[in-house]
């Protein structure tokens, strides 16, 4: 976006939203990008002036946040748990600026900082239960990014818990992508696909792919081999069209609406400090709707209700112990 008319964010009538990534890029077609789309929606719907900065090195965290805060931006979105501490520090330093920390759990409540968090374990639990009901071989698999990222851990272990809840003796293959550099774990689709196919070769007939592009690779592997696949984060029916014919559902974590909702609250002066829980759930069955038996559908709705009202617990630790 050209810079010709730089907005003066200090003016009250000018509403500015800035976004800072951790080491990721804004065009990662996944986590950062979904959040950025929430910001873009604010540009469209709320008339916000939006801008982003991509961090290339963790030593720039504070500086990059300060770049927005010093320019009197109204809202600064920091994406990723790695930015958590820098965001808390900035929130204290700039009380007039609203901060949204995506995937950052808050231990204390700072009025101008909202941690946008998601119960990924519930989404994972739901699709795990779905997989356990749909498998014919009694073997299900999950291909995931690194378990060092709590969200991924919760998806993966939620999946395990959900499957076990339905069928305690089920064979569950959960593979985390730990064997490369941290920044690679979400962008190694080739590994995801290879791993998924290796699972399928061992009669696994449902693959849950969760972990950015790595997970997408797993969905593609499933599509190629013609076994059911389950996506993650958004309804991947729309983001991985190659897998549409096998995509059973997706474990959803609604980043874009979550981000947008918080920005909207900030604009309306109703900004909540502390933790703000976004929505999780499972996506529609789309093309496979007819293949899912009615009793399975009923069971799924039942489980979701139980998770929401708290009568059903996933018992997944929030982070890898």
């Amino acid at each position: 976006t050209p810079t010709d008319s730089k907005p003066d964010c200090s003016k009250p009538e000018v509403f500015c939203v800035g976004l800072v990534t951790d080491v990721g890029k804004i065009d990662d077609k996944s986590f950062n990008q979904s959040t950025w789309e929430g910001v873009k929606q604010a540009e469209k719907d709320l008339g916000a002036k939006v801008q982003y900065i991509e961090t290339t090195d963790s030593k720039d965290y504070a500086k990059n946040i300060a770049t927005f805060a010093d320019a009197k931006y109204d809202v600064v979105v920091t994406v990723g748990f790695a930015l958590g501490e820098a965001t808390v520090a900035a929130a204290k330093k700039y009380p007039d600026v609203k901060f949204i920390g995506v995937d950052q759990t808050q231990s204390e409540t700072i009025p101008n900082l909202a941690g946008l968090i998601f119960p990924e374990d519930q989404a994972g639990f739901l699709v795990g239960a779905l997989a356990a009901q749909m498998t014919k071989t009694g073997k299900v698999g999950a291909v995931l990014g690194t378990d060092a990222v709590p969200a991924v851990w919760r998806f993966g272990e939620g999946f395990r818990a959900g499957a076990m809840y339905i069928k305690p003796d089920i064979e569950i293959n959960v593979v985390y992508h730990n064997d490369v550099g941290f920044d690679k774990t979400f962008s190694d689709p080739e590994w995801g696909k290879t791993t998924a196919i290796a699972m399928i070769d061992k009669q696994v007939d449902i693959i849950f792919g969760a972990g950015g592009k790595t997970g997408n690779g797993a969905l593609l592997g499933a599509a190629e081999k013609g076994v059911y696949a389950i996506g993650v984060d958004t309804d991947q029916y729309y983001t991985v069209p190659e897998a549409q014919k096998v995509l059973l559902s997706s474990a959803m974590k609604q980043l874009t609406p979550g981000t947008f909702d918080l920005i909207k609250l900030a604009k309306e002066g109703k900004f909540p400090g502390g933790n703000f829980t976004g929505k999780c759930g499972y996506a529609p069955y789309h093309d496979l709707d007819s293949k899912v038996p009615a009793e399975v559908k009923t069971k799924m709705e039942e489980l979701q209700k139980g998770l929401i009202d708290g009568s059903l617990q996933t018992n997944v630790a929030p982070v890898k112990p």
Partner: protein
Amino acid sequence: MAEKEKTSSSQPRISGWLRSGLNTMLVPALAVLTAMIVGGIVIALAGGNPFAAYAGLIEGSFGSLNAISETTVWATPYIFAGLAVAFGFKGGLFNIGAEGQLAFGAVMAALVGYGLPLMGVDLPAVVFVPLTVVAGIIAGGIWAAIPGWLKAKFGGHEVINTIMMNYIALNITSYLLNGPMKDNNPLNVVARTPLIAESARISTVFPDYRFHWGFILALLVAVLIWFILWKTTLGFEIRTVGTNPDAARYAGVNVSNIIIITMVISGALAGMAGSIEVTALNYRHELGFAVGYGFDAIAIALLGKNHPAGVVLASLLFGAMRNGATRMQFNTQIPVDIISIIQALILLFVAADAIVRYIYHIRIQQDRLVLTRGWGG
């Protein structure tokens, strides 16, 4: 003839030194200029405004005291890592492994920095700071000693081996930071170590800026490296091995030992880059930090003509570019990858200086850099 020469020797030497200094810097300077121009064309082709971009770059790197301070913060690890690569080059070794040595050095410095207090060892800062820094130096040295030893003993090529050591360091670091060395503060979810003790930290020079004593240390180390290379017998041996290993053997130098020593010192410098980042800036080691320093260091060493003074200048330039990138992106939303392109172009024009000489019609011939001698073995 000898008479005539004696009388005229002292004066021309100073101006000769100056002139040769200028000549040495001429091609790198033009290489930087050319890279900036080509980079500007790329920006323009992509629909951006190169002038706004460069203005943002300069504003972000030198536009304020804080910007300058941040530039030195960026330049500090570059100086150490650049010296590491340059030192290897002087000894005829291409150390692509600065990245892994740096990471390993940082991990070990962090381990000492937070580990000793956990074990109940309570040290005053005068002891603890140097100890922590030295832990990184030793770790980096060991990490480089392995490929050095493989080269000296078996002729295994250091380029491939240092690259492999990078991957090994990455795996081991991932393992440590996700497992045994993970910060187990219940709030932490990041793959990182706990904070190092207060008494293991290098302080900043002025209260409100991150400009720290590690930068001053880097300058001193640059002087030390210059002294070692050009003023000591060890440096003479290293340069001899680097220029003509056969003649070095003839002259009684133990070539294998010098290869190992060169790698160890090179690795130690890279390790120091890591330990200074831990002790003076981050106070811990975190996964994902320090990606790409190894490659940047190669460009810096070559741009600085493998001379410590050149390395310092090149580090400041690269540090300024990396630091200014934030402001450039904030102002223009041009992707930061353009910085990588410019850096690659600088390296290209420095390495293939014939291109620059051709463009600017420069006739002064310099000795070509010959570093590699096949794959060995």
